[in-house]
């Protein structure tokens, strides 16, 4: 069960909340395996994808998840620039609510926007990524995938590799996996790992060889090309040479280790194609699980609002 009308971040969730979402998602995953993949559970509800940042996969996943629950979906994409000039964020959100939205799924480049809207709206606000703060449904689907593959999360050694400092996916995963009892390690250049990370109980490695030793899960993060030349790392070539995941490096992990990536991938930069397409990769299953987890989130939030 959930106890709040909104899903703002993993920080705000209890272990019970997380487990409840994952358990519910397991049920919906069964539905997705059926011939008829749709249930009438949330018929008559309306979800609005309010995306202030470009996104294809997350938006599509939410859209399909809503449709599988028989919820009507509207996509409302607003380039941030036009909002800066014109209508305020809150006016936009209130307009969407006035159209009858029960769920407002929001992505925005500024941290805290879902929190601001949650205070102003009656609708359930679902954070689909806010700045460098959180991306909770991604962390939930990652936890779901790990649990499915490994049977547990507690006690696992999980390495997150890459751009931690700018990654809301990394943040949500760190909070979630730590809450669920995993031992989290971060691997990457010092410029891409906030120095406060060690204060919250994760171990930081700057050498990928040291960091990957005996891990159960390797979670790769996307390297954003625009960080290049801004002082975070000199070139993608140098990054790839030092922190890219190659088959040789993956041998350092446990034999049954799995490899994850939230996508979209830069093949040949943070991850080699052999791994992405190889037997240890669960990358496409993550995408499928995303649907089940997002269905579970909407279902449980609808229960809170009832």
């Amino acid at each position, binding site marked *: 069960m959930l106890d709040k009308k909104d899903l703002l971040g993993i920080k705000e969730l209890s272990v019970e909340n997380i487990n409840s979402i994952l358990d519910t998602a397991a049920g919906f995953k069964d539905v997705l395996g059926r011939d008829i993949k749709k249930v009438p559970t949330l018929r008559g509800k309306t979800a609005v994808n309010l995306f202030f940042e470009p996104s294809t996969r997350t938006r599509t996943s939410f859209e399909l998840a809503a449709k599988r629950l028989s919820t009507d979906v509207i996509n409302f994409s607003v380039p941030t620039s036009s909002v800066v000039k014109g209508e305020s964020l809150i006016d936009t959100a209130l307009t969407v609510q006035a159209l009858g939205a029960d769920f407002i799924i929001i992505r925005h480049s*500024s*941290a*805290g926007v879902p929190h*601001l809207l949650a205070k102003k709206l009656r609708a359930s606000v679902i954070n689909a990524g806010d700045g*460098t703060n959180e991306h909770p449904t991604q962390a939930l689907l990652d936890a779901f995938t790990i649990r499915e593959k490994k049977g547990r999360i507690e006690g696992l050694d999980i390495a997150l590799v890459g751009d931690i400092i700018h990654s809301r996916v990394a943040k949500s995963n760190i909070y979630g996996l730590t809450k669920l009892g995993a031992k989290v390690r971060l691997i990457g250049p010092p410029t891409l790992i*906030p120095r406060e990370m060690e*204060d919250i109980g994760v171990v930081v490695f700057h050498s990928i060889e040291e960091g990957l030793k005996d891990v159960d899960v390797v979670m790769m993060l996307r390297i954003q090309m625009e960080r290049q030349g801004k002082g975070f790392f000199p070139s993608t070539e140098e990054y790839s040479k030092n922190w890219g995941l190659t088959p040789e490096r993956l041998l350092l992990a446990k034999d049954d280790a799995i490899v994850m990536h939230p996508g979209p991938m830069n093949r040949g930069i943070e991850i080699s194609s052999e791994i992405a397409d190889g037997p240890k990769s669960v990358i496409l299953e993550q995408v499928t699980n995303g649907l089940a987890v997002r269905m579970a989130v909407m279902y449980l939030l609808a229960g809170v609002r009832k």
Partner: protein
Amino acid sequence: MTILIQKGHIIDPSRGIDGIGDVLIENGKIKEVRIQNTEYRSQKSNPPLPPFSKGGRGGITNSELKTINAEGMFVIPGLIDMHVHLREPGFEYKETIKTGTAAAIRGGFTTVSCMPNTFPINDNASVTEFIIRKSLDGLCTVLPIGAITKGQKGKELVEMGTMKDEGCIAFSDDGLPVMNSLIMRRALEYSKAFGLPIISHCEDLTLSEDGVMSEGLLSMTLGLRGIPAEAEQIMVFRDILLAELTRGKLHIAHVSTEGSVKLIRDAKRRGVNVTAETCPHYFSLTEDAVRNYDTNAKVNPPLRTKKDIEAIKEGLKDGTIDVIATDHAPHHRDEKLREFDLAPSGISGLETALGLSMKLVDEGVLTINQLAEKMSLNPARILGLLTPHLSSLITGPKGTLAVGSDADITILDTEKEVTVEASKFVSKGKNTPFDGWVLKGVSLITISKGRIHEWQ
């Protein structure tokens, strides 16, 4: 008009006055201050003072005498806020000189110095002249601060001499600090010709980049870009070194970090001509105030940590920090009700500054004498207001109750409790993180420009 303030506890650090007595005001000037003999203090009731002389030049007749009973209250020189944003010209929807000076009076301030980041920017004498002309109708005295460089662009110095003639009393590029060290050196040198201070908002813009709060665990947790304390300290140190090199007159605005306090303390020990201010929010709130993405607590420099607050209090106590200013930065409600990243920085501070500063007196950090120094005497000294000004715009000495000074007086009750209600601010800017706080020590009577403003 003649005003007689009776039986107040008079504090005038400029002359070491601290006692019960009367103040006589005539034609907008301090005519006389009388303190009872110290032996009266130990007695339960204060015997009346002998009457002021009647008749003759400046004598009192009952018809034109206004008497204020200040028993149980402190009577101090009118507060001077050397760092405010009045927003006019250009941003009248945020504040006007009229509303800003009214807010000042409500907060106990009789003089404010306004920063140049208006539109157009106060980087030439005609804008200065406009502000001065507008301020004639304002309830308190307004002393404009000119930009250091044209357009606050950090490249070419403004015409400091001409702007001084129009009424500028200091120069600052405030929120857009002069990053070029050579230009800053020239500013500190050139301004010496006119005896006016350079006020520096210390921020290494290349290091703070687009940060919106203090850097640390909390900024990481909130996913907000952080500004390290070093962004301030690097510039504090640079400007101290440049002041040392040039022997110019440097005033450091809104000190927010422990490191800055240390740098300024060391500089003062070496004899560098540097003064410094902090603001009430830097000793009242930590970064925790932005935890819920509360844009009313978004301010630049950002709110810091407990350790910084302690260092700032220590700096106020030992004299490292000379001044408490507000950095009054009113914004429209709509501007603050938005994404944290995009909301403008600033706190509407004029109406809470005295109450928040009085907490320092309550906590024993400052004496009431020191408070009067930080909020009146020291800013007057730094801005050159203690002596009659060359400019005809500043009529007389301020920051003191010396005979012949402007009758700028703040009368406050240190026991009365008041709950801050942002919606009732006189300022157009209701942006405060202190809404609902209970403060003690509010201005009950502010006398400025010969007018008495009174509240219950």
